[in-house]
């Protein structure tokens, strides 16, 4: 088998909180191949963003740290690599776009300057060459009249346009991996669709692998080939998107899917009431306990779930589920 582009193994990220040390990511493993797109799904506070920040080496200083496990990017171990090397990788090989396009651009520089800056820092382009590339990139992310808009300040752009600028910046150096942390959460639905189309097109053109972090099952179905469902810092279920939506093997995934109206509507003709996954994600201090953390919200809970953390059960086509009752779901 070919070596995956990014191989995360038994990753454990700890946060120091007032109640002590909590594993926000607990024994997470996954692979990402070149040009593949993978999606992290889960509620707020499940560790999706922490995974992204962990890969980028941007965990909150002095609070978060990678306690054990490995993040291997293209043969390089990112958990032990020097800060200098990590800075060279960030923005060049792995780049990231953020949730809030309104605040993730620097208000005092024009968008052109910000895009050009990335190119000059990583690719050593001259000022003029970087500026021209910035115009091309704005054009590529379909900002009309790029030549003029390149000298606009962020406040002169709408939310959707700013997110496009972020994408242009992230893709400026043709990275191997693009991490998109809830890229459309702050945008309205029509703009969301445009952004996803854009990301899909750019992925086809550049061969960039995409890690999409979202809580929107619809976005996953549209964007990703494989998905990882996260719950309370652990991988609940992994596998091909179609297969998981078709037949989830974890009660949490099942709950998430039944929360999305249009996916259900495709499967059945009758109008079911929209369901919800009752309850909330356990507090951080309960993370890492040797039991199924979803048990308190699960309809299939048994004594076994409360006594021991469920192991990964493997299914066909790489689907796996961390549930004692995976077979029965």
């Amino acid at each position, binding site marked *: 088998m070919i070596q995956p582009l990014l191989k995360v193994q038994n990753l454990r990220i700890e946060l120091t909180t007032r109640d002590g040390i909590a594993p926000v990511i607990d024994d997470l493993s996954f692979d990402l191949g070149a040009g593949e797109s993978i999606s992290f799904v889960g509620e707020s506070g499940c560790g999706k963003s922490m995974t992204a920040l962990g890969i980028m080496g941007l965990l909150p*200083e002095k609070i978060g740290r990678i306690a054990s496990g490995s993040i291997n990017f293209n043969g390089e171990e990112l958990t032990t690599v020097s800060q200098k090397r990590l800075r060279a990788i960030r923005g060049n090989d792995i780049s990231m776009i953020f949730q809030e396009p309104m605040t993730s651009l620097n208000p005092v520089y024009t968008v052109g300057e910000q895009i050009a800056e990335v190119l000059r820092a990583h690719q050593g382009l001259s000022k003029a060459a970087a500026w021209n590339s910035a115009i091309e990139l704005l054009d590529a992310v379909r900002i009309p009249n790029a030549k003029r808009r390149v000298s606009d300040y962020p406040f*002169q752009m709408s939310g959707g346009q700013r997110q496009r600028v*972020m994408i242009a910046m992230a893709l400026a150096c043709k990275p191997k991996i693009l991490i998109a942390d809830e890229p459309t959460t702050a945008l309205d639905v029509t703009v969301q669709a445009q952004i996803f189309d854009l990301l899909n097109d750019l992925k086809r053109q550049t061969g960039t692998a995409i890690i999409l972090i979202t809580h929107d099952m619809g976005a996953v179905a549209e964007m990703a080939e494989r998905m990882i469902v996260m719950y309370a810092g652990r991988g609940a279920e992994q596998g091909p998107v179609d297969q998981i939506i078709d037949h989830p093997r974890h009660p949490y995934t099942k709950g998430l899917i039944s929360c999305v109206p249009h996916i259900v509507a495709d499967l059945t003709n009758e109008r079911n009431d929209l369901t919800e996954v009752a309850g909330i994600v356990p507090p951080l201090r309960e993370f890492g306990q040797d039991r199924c953390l979803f048990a308190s919200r699960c309809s299939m809970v048994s004594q076994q779930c409360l006594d021991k953390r469920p192991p990964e059960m493997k299914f066909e086509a790489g689907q796996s589920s961390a549930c004692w009752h995976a077979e029965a779901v």
Partner: protein
Amino acid sequence: MSMPPVIQTEEIATARHPMAEAWEMFRGNHAAMVALVVLTLIMIIAAIGPYVYPTDPFDMVWAPFSPPGVDGFILGTDYLGRDLMAAIIHGARVSIVIGLAAAFMSVFIGVTVGALAGFYRGWVEELLMRVTEFFQVLPTLLFSMVIVALFGASLPMITFAIGIVSWTAVARITRSEFLRIRELEYVTASRASGATNAKLMFQIILPNALPPIIVQAALMVGSAILFEAGLSFLGLTDPNVVSWGQVIGSNRQYILDASYTVTVPGIAIFVTVLAISLVGDGLNDALNPKLRQR
């Protein structure tokens, strides 16, 4: 009904540049605008006055204590018969240069200390802020008097003495702005695109922290001029260079007999510092986003 048209770029691009908006706000502030005009005049006087009015302020040109307007001396003469008009015009340069240089020095120290403390946090912050507090609790006038008295009353030393006691406010403002801005998403985004710490500090965060620092710096020019006047009044000044404070200081014995000899330079200081304060105030209103919502 037809769909509303897609918003074209031209329509969105009508949002205005923050600096244009700040200028608009500043222009609406009449006091600040008048002060700006006065300040500009004072600057012009400081720059070209000595060439237009070349009388040496140290020359004894007439009888002592000639009141203003008498014998052709608009502002009169002092106890040695020196022309006060010449002293005001030539002294403007020193007062303003010291004011600007001392303010520049304290901004430089304050921004550096505040930026390092606010960016790196941890022990760096602890150390730098304790040092800042040390300087804050020193009695400022006394401390600068000691420096000038020990190292000599030359212009650079007076500037240094004023700068070294007044940077603490800038350091604290800079630190607080850094603490706020470093957590903003665009800083994380820059970090994620591989920016070094130096770049994050001075290229990404500092430009966004500037507005309150600019306001503070403007006000500091005024307080530095006052400070210099205070030191001169106490005699801690370069006796070979005329400044407004020095004129007050050298004439202070005659305050009852010839009050105009101290009033005239006093008014010069008063007008200049007031103008600077009003401009600073106007800048504060214009650059402070909280006051901008009308």
